[in-house]
């Protein structure tokens, strides 16, 4: 579905991504894990068109994305939930959702998608007239995901989903994400600080360090390899099971 080859990206003079190659297959949940500043978010931003790569290619269903502006990439079927939610704080919940359906294709089925989002996150329906800036952190994350789903994506990128949220809220949101993944065959890529969490729901994982992919594989295998977990992610097995 998505194929990234030999991607190099810079922030100013500093190289943030080195020769990244990865694939995302239809219907799966993929996760990018790694320490702070490893480049996980940069990979997502590059796919979404917010960061332009210096070289390398990104192919999505056969179409090259790497030089397209962000709004065109949304048109092709990739939505991103940005780090820190990035809602429109002075607009209502409903308006945020409406703006999420800004592409031509999505605006045609806006009403049914809004109802669907309200089914996924009933709290948003209760809050629909409320200004987004006044929502709690968890509600904001639900709205950010709902807004991204409004664009009718085939691939959903979620950057730092769990950051700053309580475990109960995180569990609830993950549940919804997994349901959508199964029922709608929606492909999902997650960037997560919480390694245990990410590996537990994803099918495959990439471990990123210093802007490079160091390990990739089935999450079951990654989780099973204690030495790997400790070496790259600072997770000891004891802590994880305890």
């Amino acid at each position, binding site marked *: 579905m998505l194929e990234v080859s030999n991607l190099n990206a810079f922030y100013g003079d500093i190289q943030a991504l080195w020769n990244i190659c990865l694939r995302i297959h239809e219907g799966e949940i993929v996760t990018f894990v790694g320490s702070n500043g490893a480049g996980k978010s940069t990979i997502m931003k590059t796919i979404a068109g917010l960061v332009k790569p210096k070289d390398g290619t990104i192919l999505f269903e056969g179409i090259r994305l790497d030089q397209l502006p962000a709004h065109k990439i949304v048109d092709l079927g990739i939505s991103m939930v940005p780090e820190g939610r990035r*809602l429109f704080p002075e607009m209502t919940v409903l308006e945020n959702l409406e703006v999420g359906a800004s592409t031509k294709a999505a605006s045609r089925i806006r009403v049914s998608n809004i109802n669907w989002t309200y089914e996924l996150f009933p709290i948003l329906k209760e809050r629909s007239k409320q200004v987004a800036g006044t929502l709690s952190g968890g509600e904001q994350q639900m709205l950010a995901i709902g807004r991204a789903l409004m664009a009718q994506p085939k691939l959903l990128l979620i950057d730092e989903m769990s950051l700053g949220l309580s475990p109960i809220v995180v569990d609830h949101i993950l549940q919804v994400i997994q349901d959508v993944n199964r029922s709608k065959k929606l492909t999902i890529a997650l960037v997560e600080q919480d390694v245990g969490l990410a590996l537990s729901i994803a099918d495959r994982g990439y471990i990123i360090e210093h802007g490079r992919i160091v390990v990739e594989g089935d999450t079951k295998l990654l989780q099973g390899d204690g030495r790997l977990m400790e070496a790259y992610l600072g997770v000891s097995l004891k802590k994880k099971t305890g």
Partner: protein
Amino acid sequence: MEMFTQTIAYGILVGAMYGLLTLGLGLLMGVMKFLNVAHGTFIVLGGYVSYWLFTRYGLNPYLSIPLVIAVMFLVGLVVYKVTLSPLLKLPSVGNRLNSSMLITFGIIYVVDNLMTIFWKPDVRSIVAPFTGRSMELFGTKFSITGLCGFAVAIVVAVALYFVLGRTQFGKHVRAATQDAEAASLCGINVHRTYLISSGIAIALAGVAGVIIVSSYSISPNGGLRWLLVAFVVMILAGEGNINAIVPAGLILGLLEAVGVFIIGAPYRQVVALVIFIVILIFRPQGLFRKRRLAT
């Protein structure tokens, strides 16, 4: 007493016009953080377009408004494409604001001189059959041009409120205003939204020009006077608070009228500038807005 109600009536009419002539400035500033110091110059240009249509074809200035809007909208598109859009590549909003000030300052010279070439440096105004006539409402005299200006200001402000608040385009504008990057992630073509907003902003300046050339007069370098008024109104409304602009204009018009009534006409601009300074010191966020919450 009659003098005083007359003063209030005058303040309301002038105030509505103050609001109208600030809308375009407030839109560019609110949406894109462009400080368009050539705003007054575009007001004058809009006035000349209307003046030209009146002298050439005898077109009633108020009926020329749709044509002026069309012409000035195109001017706005060109201004954005040629001078303002490159500024979006600058790293910070502060850079963008400063640079837009310098660039539009340059535009003043170019457009001022072009207007001098086309229309000569003379002071011009539209003298139509209704100019200088007045009618009585509620025992108070209102000038016809003042009333027409008031009506136009209200219609334009309501239309803008409707466009920004209710239409899909308006939602795109507000989304891009609050977080341009997040807006692009929603599939919004932010550049196109900015382009059209610029066209609308300059068209709004043009409409104000029509009212000014019918009620007052224009000359190629006369834009500064209106720019200063627009600055005061924008600060009163609070930067980015477009819906508060016409109310803020009314407040300025009334305060000015009362000030002139008490201390005399030569101090008209002093009143406005004192208000400007007082607001900046005590309520820099404007009269209508709570201090922005930290996010």
